[in-house]
C-alpha cells in the first residue's frame, strides 16, 4: 500500500491532556505529524483536531480507530486530499524599504493574492492563505529579498461529505 496524505479530523471534549493522549497514538506507531491544528468546531463545547499525516491508508484507518477509542473523543474521521477543502495560512514579515525600493515585491503581492496586514516604518506583514504549494512558492519568491520572519499554520480542512457529529452526540446522550 502506497503512502498518501491523509487529513484526520477528531471531534472531542475540550479537556486538558487530550492532545497528549492523541499525539501519543502517532508516537506509538512512529508516525510524524506533518501538521496539527486545534480549534473549536461547529458544535458548542466540542473541539476539533485537524491532523495531517503521510502514510498508508491501512495505518491511517487503524490510527483513527485507536484515536476514536479514547474516552473523550467523540468521533474521528480520515480523508484524502481529494475529499476535503483545505487551506493553510502564513505570515511573512519583510523590511518596509523593500516595498518601495523593489517594484517586483509589489507584483508578487498582487499575483499571489496576499494581504498586507500591517505596515510600519521598519517592516510590513503579508498574510497568505492557500494550499501548501502556493505558500511555498511565495516563500521562494520573497526569500531572495530577505524575510525577517515567517510562520505557517497547520492545515485546516472541511470535508466535501457530511459529518454527522451532532446526530452522534444526540445518540450517545439518549442511550
Amino acid at each position, binding site marked *: 500500500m502506497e503512502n498518501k496524505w491523509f487529513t484526520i479530523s477528531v471531534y*472531542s471534549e475540550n479537556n486538558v491532556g487530550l492532545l*497528549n493522549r492523541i499525539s501519543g497514538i502517532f508516537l506509538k506507531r512512529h508516525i510524524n505529524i506533518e501538521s496539527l491544528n486545534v480549534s473549536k468546531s461547529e458544535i458548542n463545547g466540542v473541539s476539533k483536531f485537524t491532523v495531517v499525516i503521510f502514510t498508508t491508508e491501512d495505518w491511517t484507518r487503524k490510527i483513527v480507530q485507536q484515536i476514536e*477509542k479514547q*474516552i*473523550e473523543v467523540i468521533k474521528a474521521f480520515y480523508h484524502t486530499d481529494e475529499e476535503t477543502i483545505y487551506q493553510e495560512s502564513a505570515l511573512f514579515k519583510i523590511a518596509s524599504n523593500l516595498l518601495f525600493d523593489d517594484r517586483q515585491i509589489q507584483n508578487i503581492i498582487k499575483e499571489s493574492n496576499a494581504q498586507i496586514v500591517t505596515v510600519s516604518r521598519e517592516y510590513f506583514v503579508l498574510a497568505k492563505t492557500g494550499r501548501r504549494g502556493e505558500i511555498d512558492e511565495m516563500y521562494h519568491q520573497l526569500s531572495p529579498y530577505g524575510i525577517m520572519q515567517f510562520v505557517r499554520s497547520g492545515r485546516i480542512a472541511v470535508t466535501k461529505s457530511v459529518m454527522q457529529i451532532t446526530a452522534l452526540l444526540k445518540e450517545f446522550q439518549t*442511550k
Partner: protein
Amino acid sequence: METLKEKNTGSTKQTTIRISGAEALIHCLLAEEADLIYGYPGGAIMPVYDELYKFQDKLTHILTRHEQGATHAAQGYARVTGKVGVAMATSGPGATNLVTGLADAQIDSTPMVCITGQVPRHLLGSDAFQETDIIGISTPVTKWNYQITKATEIPEIMAKAFYIAKSGRPGPVLIDITKNAQFDELDFSYEPCTGVRSYNPSPKINSKAIEQAADLINNAKKPYIIFGQGVILGHAEEQLKALVEKAGIPAAWTILGLSAMHTDHPLNVGMVGMHGNYGPNILTNECDVLIAIGMRFDDRVTGSLDTYAKQAKVIHFEIDPAEIDKNVTTDVAILGDARDSLELLLPLIKENKHEEWHNEFKTKYEEEFDAVIKNDLHPTKEGLTMGEVIEEINLASKNKAVIVTDVGQHQMIACRYAKFNQSKSNITSGGLGTMGFALPAAIGAKMGAEDREVVAIIGDGGYQMNIQELATIYQNKTAVKIVVLNNDHLGMVRQWQELFFERRYASTVMTNPDFVKIAEGYHIKAKRVEKRKDLKATVEEMMASSEPYFLEVKVEKEDNVFPMIPSGASVSDIRLK
C-alpha cells in the same frame, strides 16, 4: 467542568455533607463497593491515609512493600472477582512505581482505579519535592486519567473513574489528586456515573452481522473457535459452552481465555499460540470458518499474519472497535458484548457434530502427546520437570485452584497443563509479560477469593522481582501457596539463546539465594523438593495447609518448552522439538 456532563439517573435532590476532599474520596470508594485497596503511603497522599485510619472498619487498606506490588495485587483481586481493583500511592516515585501495573492492566483489559497524591496545586510545574507529571507519564498506559485540583471535583470524577474502568472493554484509570484538594472541604453527595457523552462502551449489536455469522457457521465443514478473555469479562462462559456443544465446534483458548471453559470439556481442544498445543495451531490453517470470541489476534497467537488462517472466513466477536481488522481482516465483525452477541446467535445455529473434523484434533493431540506431553507429565529421566509439578497440583487441588503465574517457561507450562473447572481461575500477565506479577497478584487473588486455594507458580527469576511482597503475606496471614520452579536460569531467554542465538548464554544463569531460608525469614512455612519421590507428598501437604506455604522445586536446568512457533513463523510451522 462544563465538558464533563454526565448522564445521571433520576437526579433527585440529594442531601450533602460538608467534609474534606480526603474524606470524600473514602466515601466515593465505599459507594463503589470497594472493600479492599492496596497501597503505600507518602507525603502527598497523607490526608487520604489519615481518613483511611478513621474508616478502617469499613475499608481495608493492605500495605504492600512496593507500589508495583499494590497494582498487581489490585489486578489479581480484579481478575478473580470481576470487580474493580484499587491501588493507591503517593506522588513522584510512588506514582512512577505504578506504571508497570497500569501498562499490564491496560494490555490485559483489567479494571483498576489507581489513586495518586500530587503536590499542592500552587506548586504544580515547579519541580517541587516528589513532583512528577504522572498524568503525562501514565497517559499511554491508561484507559483514562485525570488530575483533580479542586475538592469539589472529587465525587464526579471518582464516579466517572469507576464507570470507565469497568465498562466496555475494561482497563486502568489513574486519578491524581493534588494535596490541597485532599485538605479542602466540599459539600459532598455521590451519584454513580451511568454514561459519558463521548464514550460508547457497548456498541449496539448488528443483527445482520449475527445472521451472516450464523450462516457461515451453519454451512461450515470445519468451524473452529478461539476464545479469549472477552468471554470471561463479558460473563459469556455459559453461552460459549452452549455454542460449542450445539454446533459441535472444537474450541481453543488464548492464554487469557483459559478457564472460561472447563479444560476437560471434550470439545475444548487446547491452547493456541507460540507454546500452545499442536493441533489448535496447525488446524488454524485448515479450518474453513474461524470464530474468534473476545480475543485480539495477538502476535504470540497468530505468528506470521501473512500465513494466518488465509483459507478461512473469519468471524470476530469483539467489544472494542479498534480491534476489528487491526491484525486479521475479518469477513464478519460482530461488535458488542460477548454474552449478548452469543445469545442472539444461538437460536440461529443448527445442531451439528463435525466428528471427522474433531478427530483431526485428536490425532494431532496424540502426536503431541508422544513427542512432548508424555515426557513433560510422566518423565522417565532423573530430573524433575515443570509439567509434573503442575500435574501434581492439579491432582491435589482437584482442578479447583486459582492458578497465578508469572512470565516465562513455567507460565507456558502452567497454561498448557493446569486444569480448571471454574472461570476466572487463571491469572497471568499475558500481553505485557510482566515478570514479578505473580507473587503480588496471588495476594490480591487470595483476598478476593478467600474460600479458594490460590497457587502462585513462579520462576526463580520473576520471584525475585517482587519478592518483598512476602512481607505482605506474612503481615496479613494471606494463605497463598507459592511454588517456585527453580531451574537457576532465566529459562525462556536461555531457551531462545539455545535455539536462535547459537547457545550464547548471555546473562541467563542465576546464582540464587536459599529461597527456603528467605521464606522462613518472613515466618512462612517452607520446603524444598529435589527428588521426584518427595514431590507428591509435599504438594499434598502444601495444598492441605491452611497457612501461607512456600515450596521450591528444583527442576531440570536446561529443559525447553515445546511445541514452539518460532518468532515470526507461521502457525503451520509449529515445532514439536
